[in-house]
């Protein structure tokens, strides 16, 4: 077999060098740089988290106090939220008000949806009593909103109907 000249050796060597460099770049260096970038991002994320956690660690006592305060606040707020499937509580409150103001409840109905409940009811009685009932209705503690109403004034008595929305978890 003929021996290769220096120029041929040089060409083959250059080609081999380029192949090796390309392979190294493609399969070693570039994946490595990608990995380094990913690691840098992960480190930055962890550093941010660490800064936050370090602050938490320093403020541990204050956080515990805040948790206790928030729990108290939530307990107070939760008393105003009607639990699911317990609409009877609201009806009981309405009937209590009708009894105290001496009006008669003539219709009760309800419609349930995802986060709120729609109630319709009517009351009848002397005008002043119905007015008193309307005032008392404002005092029901559950989170609710009267969104529609109709008050008809007759000679002897007044009839009022209401549509109320109630928030529930």
């Amino acid at each position, binding site marked *: 077999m003929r021996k290769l000249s220096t120029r041929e050796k*040089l060409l083959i*060597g*250059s080609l081999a*060098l380029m192949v*090796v*460099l390309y392979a*190294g*770049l493609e399969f*070693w*260096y570039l994946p*490595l*740089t990608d*990995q*380094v970038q990913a*690691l*840098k991002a*992960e*480190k930055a994320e*962890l*550093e941010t*988290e*660490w800064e*936050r*956690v*370090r602050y*938490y*660690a320093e403020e*541990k006592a204050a*956080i*515990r106090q*805040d*948790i206790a305060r*928030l*729990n108290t*606040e*939530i307990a107070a*707020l*939760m008393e*105003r*939220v009607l639990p699911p499937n317990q609409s009877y509580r609201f009806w009981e409150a309405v009937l209590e008000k009708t009894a105290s103001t001496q009006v008669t409840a003539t219709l009760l109905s309800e419609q349930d949806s995802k986060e709120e409940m729609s109630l319709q009811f009517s009351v009848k009685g002397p005008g002043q009593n119905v*007015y008193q009932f*309307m*005032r008392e*209705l*404002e005092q029901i503690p559950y*989170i*609710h*909103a*009267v*969104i*529609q*109403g*109709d*008050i*008809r*004034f007759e000679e002897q008595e007044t009839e*009022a109907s*209401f549509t109320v*929305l109630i*928030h529930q978890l």
Partner: protein
Amino acid sequence: MMASRSWRAGIQIGRQHVKLVVMRKKGKRWNVVLEDTETAPEAIMKDGKVLQPELAGLQIRKLWMKHRLKVRHVSVVAEEMPFYVRRLHLPRMPKKEIPKAVENKARLELPVELRDVAIRFFPVREAKKEDRETTQEYVLVAAYKSDIDALVRAVKAAGLSVQAVGLEPDAICRGLAYDKPDEPVQHTRLLVKMGANRMMLAVMSGGQFDYARYVPIRGEGRDGTEEIAGEIDRTVMGWEASAGGRTIQTIVFLDEREEWPAVRERIGRSFSGETVVLPAPYTACLGAVLPAEGRINFHSDPPPLHKLTRSPLYLKAAALVMLAAVAAGLYESGSAYMLRRDIDRLQQQLDRNREAKEWADEKLVLMELVRHLQQASDEYADRHVSSAALYDFVMDRLPPGVIIHDMAFTRDELTVSGFAPDQHAVTELLRNFQEAGLFPRVSLVHSSEGDGLYSFALRLETGNAAEQDET
């Protein structure tokens, strides 16, 4: 003992022993700091070939353990290792062509296949004056690769790496040059050393190794003396005949041996020069350790940097490119390693403070729940229409004689209907509502007379309803 560039170690492997010399550089001179011998329980060499590299490695290891040596790069020389030596005359030629020319000459001169031997050569310093301008004389030395490999394996078996594999006669010459620095360089000596099986005859000329051979000695007593003296005579005559007028001035008998007095007496009859006996048990080992230019080194793995400095420019450039690429890759690898270490450290810190994080998360959840509940409360308060307040609003603004019959309300509007004694009362009621300013748009839906009373209907719209209408 410390391991650094100022320390060197050399090993000499004999038939049943391993010798060690350690030198340390102080100033510009290398000084011997340790000489020792470890005896093997059985033969580790035969005829200059290492038979059991592992056993030899074990003996070397013992020496290293005994003296707690830290030197890891050693030179090694084997006693009586077979070799070929030839003198070559080559015409003057460019330096880079010399190796090829020597190889071609070696192919003709040596009785072995070139692929089986490692070849080294060096120029003879004292070329003949008349030939100096046209030719250059070289000494060619060749040793079997298998013997060299066995030596390297023995060193590696001891957990060390090889710096150089030397040749015994060359190492002895250089060891003697170190021991006798005052001797004139031009002095030519024949070195005689009796080995386990064979006698070494080496010529040291111009301060360096010139020629050597091993000869087997079978005779004993008087026959042995004659045989040794005969070989010495033949070597002296043979070398002087080929050396172009140079003569051997001194015959040096190495080590104290019982046959040397008789041999010296016998040689004295035919040799006009001086004969001396030199006890030098560690000379070969010493010569192997000494750093010197032109040393015969059969180790075929010279440092890459050394190879590179002697390579052509394009190879240097290619190596530089590769080096840069590898350095870039290593830098990235190092970065990745450092980043992983930092990430691990951060993870550990986070793990240690996990409780604080859980509390903080719990606080966030609770805050979110409070916000949700308050938002719901505010939203319902915003949507709520107070019927009692509307009632008060309407009743407070009724003119005398006006009666309300119906009040219907949504979040957007309030419709009030009733009866009034005349149209003025209706208009007054409309004015009262409009001037109250609570509802942006107040309008009269109708007002009509019937049965002596005027029925009316008014629409009071909130801002939302008004905006929807305009849209």
